[in-house]
């Protein structure tokens, strides 16, 4: 596996074979210890007591309801952030305006804030002691320790994903094609659907997949607003924590294996998208 092929024959611009071998070896060992081993362990523990025990993990009613809640949260958060991402990428990528770089910085804000702080901000706003708490209680609206809070926290942490994938591409492609379409009589929607969208579809797909993976896997922000009501407000990652802390390792890693498969699927889509984008830019440099 670690066999180094001579990369370039020119003397002086490559490394001696032993150095190459040492560097490749270090890289392979580092990535094996930090990436492959944790990944392999998830499936080894999940399947450690046989396939029957693995499948039995998914008959636990709390686990089933956690899977359902995770799907609900992602089904709301991902479309919301797709609409936002397209709007933001259009406004920022296609126009020059005052305050643009500030807006880009604000867009990145959810990436740099601790998920725990995200959860806390919603508790301070919507919790019983919070700014809107008395009003919400009077109108019998439950956000914190209920599903709306989990959805809101999920939306917050996944806000930038779609916009971040679309923005560089939309900006790089410029406005020439859109301007041509508009000059030929297309309206704004037609221009977007027929010209812009086909150009960014692969980046959009990857943004959606990445946003979805993060939405289904979010832990810290959701943990703070969920209140850990079993069977009601536990998402898949929270259910993993509950099972793991109960020393139910096979069920914990069984649920974890679903999310790990989702992560692997995300990486496969990423590789395919990168390959597609590279092919497109080869045809139209």
């Amino acid at each position, binding site marked *: 596996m*670690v066999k*180094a092929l001579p990369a370039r024959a*020119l003397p*002086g*611009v*490559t*490394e*001696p074979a032993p150095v190459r071998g040492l*560097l490749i070896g270090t*890289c*392979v060992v*580092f990535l094996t210890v*930090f*990436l*492959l*081993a*944790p*990944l392999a362990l998830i499936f080894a523990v999940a399947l450690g007591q046989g396939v029957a025990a693995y499948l039995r993990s998914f008959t636990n009613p709390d686990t089933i309801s956690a899977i359902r809640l995770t799907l609900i949260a992602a089904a709301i958060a991902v479309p919301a952030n797709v609409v*936002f991402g397209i*709007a*933001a990428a259009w*406004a*920022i990528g296609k126009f*020059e*305006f*005052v305050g643009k770089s500030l807006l880009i*910085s*604000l867009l990145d804000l959810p990436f*740099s*804030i*601790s*998920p*725990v*702080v995200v959860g*806390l*901000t919603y508790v*301070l706003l919507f919790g019983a002691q919070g*700014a809107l708490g008395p009003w919400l209680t009077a109108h019998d609206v439950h956000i914190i320790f209920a599903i709306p809070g989990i959805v809101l926290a999920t939306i*917050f942490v996944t*806000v930038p994903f779609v916009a971040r994938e679309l923005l560089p591409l939309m900006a790089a492609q410029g*406005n020439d094609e859109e*301007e041509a379409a*508009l000059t030929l009589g297309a309206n704004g929607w037609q221009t977007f659907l027929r010209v812009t969208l086909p150009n960014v579809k692969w980046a959009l797909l990857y943004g959606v997949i990445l946003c979805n*993976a993060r939405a289904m*896997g*979010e*832990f*810290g922000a959701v943990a*703070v607003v969920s209140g850990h009501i079993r069977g009601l407000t536990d998402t898949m*990652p929270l259910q993993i924590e509950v099972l*793991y802390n109960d020393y139910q*390792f096979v069920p*914990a890693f069984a649920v*974890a294996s679903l999310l*790990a498969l989702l*992560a692997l699927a*995300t990486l*496969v889509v*990423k*590789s395919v998208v990168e390959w597609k984008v590279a092919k497109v830019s080869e045809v139209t440099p």
Partner: protein
Amino acid sequence: MLASLSRLRRPSIIPGFGLTLGFTILYLSLIVLIPLSATFVEASKMGPHAFWHVVTTPRAMASYGLSFGASFLGALANFVLGTLVAWVLVRYEFAGKRILDSLVDLPFALPTAVAGIALTTLYAPSGWFGKPLATLGVHVAFTRLGVVVALTFIGLPFVVRTVQPVLEDLDKELEEAAASLGAGRWQTFARVIYPAIFPAALTGFALAFARGVGEYGSVIFIAGNMPMRTEITPLLIVTKLEEYDYRGATAIAVVMLVLSFVMLLGINALQRWSGHREAAVAADG
């Protein structure tokens, strides 16, 4: 409103500026900015003395020390090994390279709670790595070293993914020129290649560090969570919330938020510098 927005931008025939920018700002405000400002409003009710007292208790100071120290060490490990991985993936060919390259993004895609239980099980005293390490007297799980391991995992993609594109664009002729002028391979690396990739590596280091400081899910399982010793700052916020100490949680969250903003500004400055350096290198070459 729309007319006044239009006056702040460069004229264009592309439609939808008012609609998309208006929606972008409204959405960001409702989901991100207003909840965040609620945290500052809540903290401001405390008064400076009470605030200062809460954020400088020995337990809080110990948590900052661990969160920042472990993030620094994790980011440092990635600064060195991430640069090496980027180098190996760009310059050498070996079996399995494509798969390892795709796997580098695993920490982005794998939910943090899943990473947390996997790393803990690996490094627990009976685990695949924990057992042999224990015979050497090295304990990782439930110690500060465990926190560093988790944050190294979480930060792994950042340096690799910032350095990789710079190395790919680096002009081979520069190295050939250095070699033909009599530079050894190590000299060429130290004087020609390293200065070109350093800004990108430093940006990756800063991104990994910022991510590590706020990280929660992957750390809490492996850390042991002993106050004063292995308690990270985000966990301290959660603990205070669970004790209904909303003021204390908010005060510490404000400290983290301010540091997040500072790091975001620093990273933006680094990225601009890195961009200028790349542009300068490209112009020279």
